[in-house]
């Protein structure tokens, strides 16, 4: 498997210099999953960015409803290496799969080994998050197409209108 090629094609990293991608490829960890094995589950710590190299994952919610699938090249957890949280969904391998993982420990190693590459990777991840923030902000604005006084829930209305 060509890790550099796989990482270079991953959307958050497509603008990285190839050298930085090569540096990144040396710290990511490869995890093999059997069919039915969980990559992570609800309430597990969310600390890693995951890139599916091969196989397939299903994503489920708290009620075990299927909410999505991940195919090779797909990725999850862009925010996790930057600011860990808790998983609100589960991910399960539906066939033998291999997943690249980048957590805070791996990012820390990259900072120690090649700080400029680590900075670029962190900026790339944060830039992707910023893109998602833009979309979420637009979605919020779309929901505010009516006057805020029409929001019935008093606390929600107060939060949205809390302009001093």
């Amino acid at each position, binding site marked *: 498997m060509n890790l550099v090629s796989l990482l270079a094609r991953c959307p958050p990293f497509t603008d990285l210099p190839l050298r930085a991608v090569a540096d990144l490829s040396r710290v990511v960890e490869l995890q093999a999953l059997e069919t039915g094995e969980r990559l992570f589950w609800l309430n597990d710590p969310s600390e890693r960015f995951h890139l599916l190299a091969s196989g397939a994952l299903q994503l489920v919610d708290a009620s075990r409803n299927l909410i999505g699938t991940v195919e090779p090249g797909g990725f999850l957890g862009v925010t996790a290496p930057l600011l860990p949280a808790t998983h609100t969904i589960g991910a399960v391998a539906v066939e033998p799969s291999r997943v690249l993982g980048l957590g805070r420990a791996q990012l820390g190693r990259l900072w120690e080994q090649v700080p400029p590459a680590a900075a670029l990777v962190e900026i790339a991840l944060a830039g992707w998050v910023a893109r998602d923030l833009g979309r979420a902000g637009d979605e919020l604005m779309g929901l505010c*197409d009516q006057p805020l006084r029409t929001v019935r829930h008093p606390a929600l209305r107060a939060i949205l209108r809390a302009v001093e």
Partner: protein
Amino acid sequence: MHRLFRSKPLSMAARNIQLGEPEKRFIASLPRREYGSGAPVFHEGDPGTELMLVVRGRVQLTRRTAAGEDLALGLVGVGGVIGELAALTDAPRTATARAVGDVRVAVLERRALLEAMATRDPVARALLRACAQVVVHRLRRTRDLVSALRAEREGASPEQVDQLLMRAVTREEGLLIDYLHQWMPAE
């Protein structure tokens, strides 16, 4: 009811960002800029190449809705970061920032931050991580508000909206904010 959703005081010091004397000196060396009460710090849509640390006062972040109202996105106090996206992207400002009372900010140009990172300056790493964490926090909070507002618009019960809203208001704010507030010299 509103008391339930008042943001909880930050309950933890910066676990992930360790700021020592070099970082404090770096921030103390940054140029300052002042804004009178109500003055705009920047407008939504402006080009942005600077991030700012609030060293005195508070800054209100808003976006203008289709109905012409100001949607509140946050109130950033001493130690808080605004314009952090300028450190990470070339995108224009995504919100309007306005001074609440008299405000003083420490200004860091994106170019200076990137140059510091190129020289392996550990301070730059701390600031970059802070900016990244602020962006992540704001993404998560915005998504929570979207979920709460969508549920409300779709007729969810008040209790269901309460649950969704609770996630938005109990998210920990950027860890840097609390930490900076502890040692930021009074200005």
